[in-house]
């Protein structure tokens, strides 16, 4: 965070940092005071724009065109950081000759399967140096080998596994042409791919004029190179799209070309919205991963331990993922202790298996189908905060039992008596058979534990007081629930209960008789189990073994409890440290603050410049040194070259800075891992008033759609009926509220600051639709109609896209309908449907189509009639928007959901 103050230029895109991450914004302000240029790219003018050098309004969902044009500008004008690009990225690497680009196939990459609606990525692989003769399974050259189909990867949301490094490659033998001239080099492919991403295309697609584009391109390129660095900052304005992961990939390509990764004042900063949302990804309460980004096993792919270990990391690839077996064995030892042995494959068979996508939206639909009996809500309010609030509430009404653990009576706890569906008559209280338990939760001041903030830093918060009344921490509650469930099953002889009964579940009590959070942290960190160090905490994940002599619940967190000291609680005041502040909290991995910081030095290990000095090779001591913990083997010299074909950390050359990537390089082109293409390419959102100007293919052909009657879409582009929902809406947050409001709408201070739901519209749109500032408006989407107070403001800019004016409507999404909060109102998320990014199964909530009319919405049945009347005028059917392939009359579209 503090490192942003080292930047010479900061591009904030897909984030309103000044209002949504206000305290972090001080570092942007500090950079600006030191002369940095700050550019804000966002549909709305906000306080971030007001304090930036320039605001560039953009049409929601068109970011890949803008960033793609930036890539073209960099390549055309030879403004890339040549030495960095050649040495540290895969620009020089040769790709399989069979690869075909979207430019060749009108919006598809090679390998698209119409049947499955997803890609087989084998043609995207690197060309192999093994020649024709080598057909051995698992080599990169054998295109079919080792490439799991995108359909199956998408279902297990495989993209999330790359939270701590790239995907496994079979080995590290690749072909390179360091002149970058071979037509099959990544560099040349990149040039061809972005050839049509011109400033004019930006104007026609994003609504950004050529001068504004040039301003951005100049600012970014002039502030990159040896002496200067540019940082990108984003938030959910980039992630919540059916192409979200690719938005970020485009920025990664820009940053790699400009040599801004792994360097001070560079990088791509993700601003996340919850105190420990990073922690809950690292130690995931997510369906598809185990702690430390290890995959959850999938039926048919990982039936045996050998299958699993071979898939998560290969001993022949370069980098630290080659040791994935040591991480997995240590996790299984932490969970099943003595019961996990080499003979029983560490109880790998105790892990449940995935067989498709089991994300929160699929689970919601399974609830509607009556397949889910019980549901726990732990500090989350899906009735307001998840896409398609109606579907969420109706799904919960089908549960047998629901446990809500929160501070307040959130709308998800009371939907059965005061939800909008009760008001509209769709549901009745007596008719909802769901048994509901409300259990009050303890606050952060009432328990000890660690949060992981957005830059991977763990910070311990100390208990200050006892929780009041029945309030309990999740630690207390789940420890107790586990204890009781095990007690109920204690006499079971059923084999299926063994994983619960053999589970290590014996945490020591603290002074209040509750499970000791620090003991849990120690288990997460891991310890030696045998030898003279038995019982001692591990100091680093490199100490983990695959022979059962170590345990550890989350390998990337190993070191947080080194020497038995809780480093998350390290609190040396910032004033007494340099900017990096290594003795405040602890960042994974290994307390490193900037990832891949080996790239801050040149291939010989010298800083690129005095001004941007960060980590360098100390010849005398034979070690890497500098302002941070080096992200490299500490004593591996820059000149080191491994024997060809060596895998693991030993396979990394002294100038391979991307130590978690299977080839040690930064990936401009992703030969594996991305499910919707090795290069980002522009597709329109699921709902868009605009036709894709680049390809006949309108939207991401690999996105996940759910053709259902309760999930209808507006027609897009020039389809008949698209004009029924002519405007774009986008959702966002305010400074004074927190997501679905569970921690803010019950507080009088915050409620007074932002009492009422409103929509932001431009004066032009207000005039066109007769909307009055301070009056009411009804906003209608393909799914719902809601009402909001109108705010007419020049902060919203109408954009001209190919001669047509496109209006955008801004909607803060914090309010919900219920009887208990200090302030309530209609929920913006009710407007949303469910369509997901294939890599990570995240919904598109930053761009949708709507209509807006003056006045309050009708109530009761009339409200349902209004929504239905719009649907019928638009001619929306379950097929609308759900055809994955478009513009190819000969193809039969496949519409199955994910």
């Amino acid at each position, binding site marked *: 965070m503090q490192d942003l103050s080292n930047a010479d230029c900061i591009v904030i895109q897909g984030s309103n940092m000044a209002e949504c991450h206000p305290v972090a914004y001080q570092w942007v302000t500090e950079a600006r005071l030191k002369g940095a240029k700050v550019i804000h790219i966002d549909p709305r003018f906000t306080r971030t724009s007001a304090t930036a050098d320039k605001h560039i309004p953009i049409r929601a969902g068109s970011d890949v065109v803008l960033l793609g044009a930036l890539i073209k500008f960099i390549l055309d004008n030879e403004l890339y950081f040549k030495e960095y690009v050649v040495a540290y990225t895969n620009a020089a690497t040769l790709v399989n000759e069979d690869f075909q680009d979207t430019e060749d196939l009108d919006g598809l990459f090679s390998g698209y399967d119409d049947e499955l609606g997803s890609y087989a990525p084998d043609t995207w692989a690197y060309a192999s140096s093994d020649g024709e003769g080598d057909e051995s399974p698992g080599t990169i050259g054998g295109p079919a080998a080792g490439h799991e189909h995108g359909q199956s990867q998408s279902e297990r949301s495989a993209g999330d596994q790359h939270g701590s490094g790239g995907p496994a490659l079979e080995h590290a033998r690749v072909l390179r042409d360091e002149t970058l001239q071979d037509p099959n080099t990544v560099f040349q492919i990149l040039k061809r791919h972005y050839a049509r991403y011109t400033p004019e295309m930006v104007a026609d697609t994003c609504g950004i004029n050529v001068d504004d584009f040039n301003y951005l391109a100049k600012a970014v390129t002039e502030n990159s190179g040896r002496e200067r660095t540019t940082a990108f900052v984003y938030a959910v304005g980039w992630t919540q799209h059916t192409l979200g992961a690719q938005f970020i990939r485009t920025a990664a390509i820009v940053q790699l070309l400009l040599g801004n990764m792994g360097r001070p004042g560079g990088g791509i900063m993700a601003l*996340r919205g919850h105190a*420990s949302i990073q922690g809950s990804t*690292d130690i995931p309460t997510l369906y598809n991963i185990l702690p430390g980004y290890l995959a959850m096993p999938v039926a048919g792919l990982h039936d045996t331990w050998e299958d699993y270990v071979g898939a998560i990391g290969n001993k022949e690839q370069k980098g630290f993922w080659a040791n994935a077996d040591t991480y997995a064995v240590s996790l299984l030892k932490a969970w099943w202790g003595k019961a996990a042995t080499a003979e029983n494959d560490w109880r790998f068979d105790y892990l449940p298996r995935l067989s498709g996508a089991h994300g929160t939206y699929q*689970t919601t639909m399974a609830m509607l189908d009556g397949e889910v009996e019980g549901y726990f809500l732990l500090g989350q309010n899906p009735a307001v905060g998840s896409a398609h609030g109606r579907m969420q509430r109706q799904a919960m009404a089908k549960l047998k039992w629901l446990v809500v653990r929160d501070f307040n009576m959130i709308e998800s706890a009371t939907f059965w008596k005061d939800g909008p569906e009760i008001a509209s008559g769709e549901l009745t209280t007596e008719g909802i058979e769901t048994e509901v338990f*409300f259990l009050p939760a303890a606050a952060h001041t009432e328990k000890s534990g660690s949060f992981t903030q957005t830059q991977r830093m763990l910070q311990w918060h100390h208990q200050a*007081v006892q929780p009041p009344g029945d309030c309990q921490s999740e630690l207390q509650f789940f420890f107790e629930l586990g204890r009781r469930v095990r007690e109920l099953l204690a006499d079971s002889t059923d084999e299926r209960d063994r*994983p619960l009964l053999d589970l290590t579940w014996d945490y020591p009590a603290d002074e209040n008789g509750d499970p000791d959070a620090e003991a849990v*942290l120690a288990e997460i960190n891991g310890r030696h189990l045998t030898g003279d160090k038995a019982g001692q905490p591990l100091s680093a994940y490199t100490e983990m073994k695959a022979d059962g002599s170590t345990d550890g619940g989350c390998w990337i967190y190993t070191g947080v409890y080194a020497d038995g000291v809780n480093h998350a609680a390290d609190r040396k005041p910032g004033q007494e440290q340099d900017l990096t502040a290594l003795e405040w909290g602890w960042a994974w991995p290994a307390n490193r603050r900037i990832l891949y910081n080996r790239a801050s030095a040149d291939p010989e290990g010298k800083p690129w410049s005095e001004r941007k000095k960060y980590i360098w090779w100390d010849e005398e001591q034979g070690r890497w040194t500098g302002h941070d913990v080096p992200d490299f083997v500490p004593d591996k010299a820059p000149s080191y070259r491994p024997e060809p074909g060596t895998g693991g950390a030993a396979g990394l050359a002294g100038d391979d800075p991307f130590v978690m990537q299977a080839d040690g390089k930064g990936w401009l082109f992703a030969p594996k891992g991305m499910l919707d293409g090795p290069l980002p390419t522009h597709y329109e959102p699921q709902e868009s008033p605009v036709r894709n100007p680049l390809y006949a293919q309108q939207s991401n052909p690999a996105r996940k759609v759910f053709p259902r009657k309760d999930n209808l879409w507006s027609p897009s582009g020039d389809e008949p009926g698209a004009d029924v929902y002519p405007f774009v809406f986008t959702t966002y947050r305010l400074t004074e509220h927190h997501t679905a409001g569970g921690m803010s709408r019950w507080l009088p201070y915050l409620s007074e600051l932002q009492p009422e739901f409103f929509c932001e519209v431009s004066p032009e749109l207000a005039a066109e639709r007769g909307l009055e500032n301070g009056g009411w408006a009804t906003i209608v989407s393909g799914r719902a109609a809601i009402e909001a107070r109108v705010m007419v403001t020049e902060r919203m800019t109408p954009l001209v896209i190919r001669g047509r004016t496109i209006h955008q409507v801004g909607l803060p999404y914090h309010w919900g309908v219920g009887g208990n909060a200090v302030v309530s109102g209609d929920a913006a998320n009710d407007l949303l449907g469910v369509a997901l990014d294939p890599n990570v199964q995240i919904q598109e909530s930053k761009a949708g189509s709507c209509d807006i009319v003056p006045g309050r919405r009708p109530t009761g049945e009339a409200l349902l009639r209004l929504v239905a009347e719009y649907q019928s005028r638009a001619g929306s059917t379950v097929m609308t928007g759900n055809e994955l392939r478009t513009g190819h009359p000969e193809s039969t579209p496949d519409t199955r959901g994910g």
Partner: protein
Amino acid sequence: MDPKKTLLSWPVVRQLRSGDFLGRGPSVTSARTRGLEPRTSTADKVVQSVCPYCAVGCGQRVFVKDGRVVQIEGDPDSPVSRGRLCPKGSASEQLVNNPGRQRKALYRRPGGADWEPIELSTAVEMIAQRFVESRRRTWQDHDEHGRPLRRTMGIASLGGATLDNEENYLIKKLFTAAGAIQIENQARI
């Protein structure tokens, strides 16, 4: 005339004498304000904490008196936040002490019109029983090809992004051992 008030206590003179030229410091105090003491100086203890709202992770100092949180302020020692808090972080004392905060366990029976009080321990026992029963009823040993599944699709969970790492760890560990896989949080949203 109040004998204690002299020429020197004229506001303008007070301002000049105390160097408080803008009139926002000691020159504008009254007997009452002079008698006030900040809650932070009378606290029994100060505990270092972290803001529970967004992922910036601003440092907090929690002031405690008589077993109660009396104030929460920014921690000037934090290298990330340098003592600052935004409106949410600044309001977190109210998050903790809000009179409207739920402090008792409640139960709504199937089809019930309203909440009923329930003993916490009874509620937890009922939840444990339902957990075991739903798991049994919805258990899947194998898929249609005979490959192991070893799971239940009958129990799901949502939440974790506002919780501690240690809590997420226990949740994932318990649910995974129970075979419940539909465990999700805000990171998917």
